[in-house]
């Protein structure tokens, strides 16, 4: 368990760095964010108390020392107080995020899982059947690896939603009110989720395919694979032995990949007008809603750290050598 403890410590450090960056960026970058918000939101009434709260949040017109501001910021973060969202009728940022986050978490979580399983299996197959027609997949994969998620989303909407009419093009469900959880509602939500999820899977599976293929090719040269084959084990068992070991780097490089996938998924949501964090993000950008941007950054960072922690647990479960170390 020492491996896990060490990783846990690292994630704590990362969380502290993320919170500190969240605090420092508005104060380091030249310009006055509060003025920017006020100039953008013409016509809206800002009470003096609101302006004072924003001054405090972004560190303008304040006499408090940087350290005092910093400790105050920490106090706010620990109480889930991220300020108010200018673009959402002065609602607290935390409640705005809470309404949007489940959609993103559900969509990205499921799509990432599918893409990992699918990509890894395909990658292992491509490596195993090296020299067969499956190698022709690689140029296609290269293209998908390089294409921006949101461009693929454009294509998916144009082709499957508009031209073929198989799936709805926009939104997460049909009714705006939250109806009772019924089968029609669930199937409606699933129907709306298929295209965005498909986009994310197609765009992100490329990375897993290439990664798994490359490691699998190296693993197949290992002596234990040769011995397994020499013993006359069935082909399936031998592939399984090789694949089980080849998957380890994929699991450990999860940390690198998840950030890319989340970023891409946020942009995908925008194309599909999916009511998650991505759509929130683009509206916040358009309205200079800095408090909301900061809140979303922290939430996404924590979600990614949590996903990494889970990947670490899976790694320890998969690789006995790590368990031995402790």
């Amino acid at each position, binding site marked *: 368990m020492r491996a896990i403890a060490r990783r846990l410590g*690292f*994630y704590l450090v*990362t969380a502290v760095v*993320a919170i500190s960056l*969240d605090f420092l*960026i508005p104060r380091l*970058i030249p*310009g006055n964010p509060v003025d*920017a918000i006020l100039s953008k939101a013409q016509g809206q009434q800002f009470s003096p108390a609101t302006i004072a709260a924003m001054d405090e949040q972004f560190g303008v017109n304040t006499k408090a020392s940087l350290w005092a501001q910093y400790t105050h910021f920490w106090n706010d973060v620990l109480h889930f107080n991220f300020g108010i969202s200018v673009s959402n009728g002065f609602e607290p940022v935390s409640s705005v995020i809470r309404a949007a986050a489940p959609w993103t978490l559900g969509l990205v979580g499921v799509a990432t899982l599918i893409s990992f399983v699918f990509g890894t299996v395909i990658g292992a197959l491509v490596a195993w059947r*090296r*020299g*067969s*027609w499956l*190698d*022709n997949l*690689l140029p296609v994969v*290269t293209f998908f*690896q*390089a*294409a*921006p998620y*949101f*461009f693929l989303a*454009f294509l998916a909407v*144009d082709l499957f*939603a*508009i*031209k073929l009419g198989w799936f709805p093009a*926009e939104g997460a469900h049909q009714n705006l009110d939250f109806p009772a959880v019924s089968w029609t509602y669930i199937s409606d939500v699933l129907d709306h989720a298929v295209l965005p999820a498909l986009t994310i899977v197609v765009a992100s599976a490329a*990375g897993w395919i290439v*990664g798994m293929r*490359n*490691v699998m*090719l*190296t693993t*197949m*040269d*290992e*002596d234990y*694979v040769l011995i397994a*084959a020499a013993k006359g084990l069935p082909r399936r068992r*031998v592939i399984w032995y090789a694949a089980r070991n080849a998957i380890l*780097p*994929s699991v450990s*490089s999860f*940390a*690198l*990949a998840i*950030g*890319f996938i*989340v*970023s891409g998924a*946020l*942009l995908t949501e925008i194309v599909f007008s999916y009511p998650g964090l991505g759509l929130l*993000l683009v509206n916040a950008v*358009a309205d200079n809603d*800095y408090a909301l941007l900061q809140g979303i*950054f922290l939430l*996404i*960072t924590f979600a990614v750290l949590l996903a990494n922690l889970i990947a670490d647990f899976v790694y320890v479960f998969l690789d006995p050598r790590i368990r031995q170390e402790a």
Partner: protein
Amino acid sequence: MGIGTDQLAGGGPAPGAEPPGAAPGRPRRNRALRLPRSGKILTGLGMLAFFILWAIIGPFVRPYSPDATFANAPVPLPPSGAHWLGTTQVQQDVFSQLLVGGGRMIGVALIGGVIATAASVVIGVTAGYLGGLADDLLSMLANVFLVMPALPLLIIMVGFLGQSTSGNLFVIALVIAVTGWAWGARVLRAQTLSLRNRDYVDSARIIGERRWRIIASEILPNLTPIVATSFLFTVLYAVGTYAALAFLGLVNPNWSWGGMLFYAQLSNAELTGYWWWFIPPGLAIALLGTSLVLLNFGIDEFINPRLRTAGLTRKSGRRRLRPEFALTPVIRPEVRTGIGTGIATGLATEGGRR
């Protein structure tokens, strides 16, 4: 991306090992120029050259000004003789915008790539060579930046910078580099670590070479392929990130490819079937990215010959090759012409751990 780098970190190129691209009969070329001439590298280089040419001459050959408006139509017009790629919602020429947008994209990508790679070489090699506390701190920093999701961080940075400053290409490239250096630094650190205790470095140390000289003339030359892949990777990252930021409308969206998609999305071009508006810029970004990925694959195969595919399916012709356990075929183009069998097959110990 970023997956499969473990080979780079772990196996790495054996310094001084004969690269497979070097033909025995030919006169030895300069070390730096001995690029493997695989199909992937050539295709990638060709595409990249095309895009660089596009970036340079695009603004001069555009048929119209990208922000001039034309016909008085309420909807975007499909491609025609006058407008090869049709017009946008406000009747601007899509083809002209596409030509002009290349320069910004390539500019930001290259500048961002250079800055990020320079940072990752300095930080990665320093951490790997010095070791100890410096290594711990620098590695920690790199890992923190690797784990933190880049896009939201970029959005706050660029958001607080404001529209006026973020129109500056150098500022955007710099901001992108801030979030893009860590991957290269980690890979370079790992490789430096494995080079540090090789015999030739030890002997240089015993002779009494100065530290910076050992780094510059013993370590760095052997890191070249990894520096190259990490440069290509950061350029690719910058392409995607710049497109994403422009697509969000964060950086001066006028006449960049991402910005064209931003406007197309604002007008719901994908819902109304105005494909000539969003397919060209998206395809341009995707193909530019593909050229970089191809180059990266090519260099990966140069580093680790077992990853090669070319020739296995087509060129081996009737003699179909079935890879068996522990027998990874390694293709050597020179052997093919010389002996005529086409494929040299090596045992694990021979082809693998050089």
